[in-house]
């Protein structure tokens, strides 16, 4: 999708979002997202993914607490508003899943079951808005290593790729688990979230090193205080 198409869709999607929020069908946590949808459009456009290719976008970070889930949620919400295709948001952080809590839906062992072949993704996904579906996970720290390895070996998103759906993975932090970087390889494009003013540059550098030979497309700097501290450098 080109930037022009995204812009055309924006007015329609904004109206839809307002309607959805009025009807109360959008979970409160989604309605409470940062207001700058355009940031997420910018991320999607910058990834420069082929249209209708059914891409899998992995959102990860070096360590926990960088806003990884926030970015994944924001991107999913924005794309659900802007694109005429299914958006699948998957909680692939099998060590400390948090998507269910953020969405306000009951935590289910959805994604681990799909990885173990006990159910298909269609069976475990939950619809939260017209085009947005989520697959949650519960705390499976004990067998997270095995599941992450399975994720890297078996692409569970084949059917969604074929349908042209956009899959967004909330991946575990790269330095949080040895298999995190391995699991990230399932994504067609990886976005690294960095919390501004918190994460040391060396830590991020180490995470990037682990993502070597993985499709890392770029970074998102989260929480930059551009509005106040660096207003002279703001872009128009």
């Amino acid at each position, binding site marked *: 999708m080109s930037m022009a198409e995204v812009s055309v869709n924006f007015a329609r999607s904004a109206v839809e979002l307002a309607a959805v929020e009025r009807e109360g069908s959008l979970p409160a946590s989604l309605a409470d997202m*940062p207001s700058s949808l355009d940031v997420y459009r910018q991320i999607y456009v*910058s990834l420069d993914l082929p249209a209708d290719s059914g891409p899998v976008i992995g959102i990860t970070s070096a360590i926990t607490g960088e*806003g990884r889930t926030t970015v994944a949620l924001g991107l999913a919400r924005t794309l659900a508003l802007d694109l005429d295709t299914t958006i699948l948001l998957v909680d692939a952080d099998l060590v400390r899943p948090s998507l269910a809590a953020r969405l306000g839906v009951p935590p289910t062992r959805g994604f681990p079951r799909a990885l173990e072949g006990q159910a298909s993704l269609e069976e475990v996904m939950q619809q939260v808005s017209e085009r947005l579906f989520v697959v949650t996970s519960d705390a499976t720290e004990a067998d997270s290593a095995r599941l992450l390895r399975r994720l890297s070996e078996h692409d569970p998103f084949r059917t969604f790729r074929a349908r042209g759906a956009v899959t967004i993975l909330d991946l575990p932090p790269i330095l949080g688990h040895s298999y995190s970087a391995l699991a990230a390889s399932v994504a067609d494009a990886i976005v690294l979230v960095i919390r*501004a003013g918190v994460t*040391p540059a060396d830590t991020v550098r180490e995470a*990037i090193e682990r993502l070597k030979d993985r499709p890392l497309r*770029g*970074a*998102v700097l989260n*929480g930059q205080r551009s509005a106040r501290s660096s207003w002279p450098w703001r872009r128009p």
Partner: protein
Amino acid sequence: MQQFDDESQQDLVDAFPRSPRARPDAVRRYIDTFMRHWVIALIPVLVLPVAAVGVALKSSKTATATASIWVDQNSVKQLSYADPQATPASNTAATLTQLLQTASFDVRVARESPLYWSTVRTKPNRDGVVADDLSKKVMVTANGADLVVISFKSNYRQMGVQLLQSILKEAPREIARLNQQQAASSLAFYTRQKADAQTRLARFTKQLATYMQLQHISPTQMAEQALFDPKFAALYDAVQSAQVDVRNADQQLSQATSLAGTGGSIEVIDAPSEVISATSKKTLALYFGIALLLGLVLSGGFVVLMTARDKSLRFADEVPDLLGVPILATIPFEPGLTRKRGVR
């Protein structure tokens, strides 16, 4: 799948060019650190000046105690050591100043002033400290011919009043004691002088009478005889000189006797009273300025320290520069979002 090709990376880097007006990175990071920790950074700047002014207002008030005394002119004139050219007030002021130079007097005065005594009682070399302190801090000045003003400045209320009351109580006693001491020695000295003069007078009178009898000189011829008779003239002069000495000794004895009864002639016109002087605006401004400067230094040091310790990435243009990864977007800081949800 590829990581990211050089061309797309360059495109993204080009999309976020550094502003030509951009400040040096170090300055930008200092400003950012301040913006992140401005509450803590401003605490010294705000608290220290307020605290300093508070301390200045509370602690630097000075209590000035003053007393005025009237000097009896006659009593001063009687004093043998008084300067006849100076005014009574000057003489009394000089006497009081001299008394304050003596450690024994100062210690007696200090003991009579409970507040002052409590501040010096336990000090080593207490008597020396007291003598040094009082001789410097108690100001005695003559005001006109008969008025003496005595004052003392202290940081403690009522201390000066007590001290001046003690000085005005002890000074007359001390002066009287000194006068009696001096009168006693004068009496002894001039009594001997008079006795000597009387002995000489008796001896020369007898020699003169014998000589007049031998030379048949009548008392009416004494002046004429002295003109041409050198021996008679010498005896006559010796008798007159002895008579003068006896009279002088009598006068000195009389003066010494009266001196022994003087000393308590200080009349207090204005009893010791105290004036509390407020802290001057200049002092307040000085305290405020120093504290503000110190606060700024502390705040600046805090910001520099925090900046030096922080190795995190803060600005979008640092990511490609330091990590070689293009920046896709920046999400602005939203206060409360992180704290509210514990964003991961």
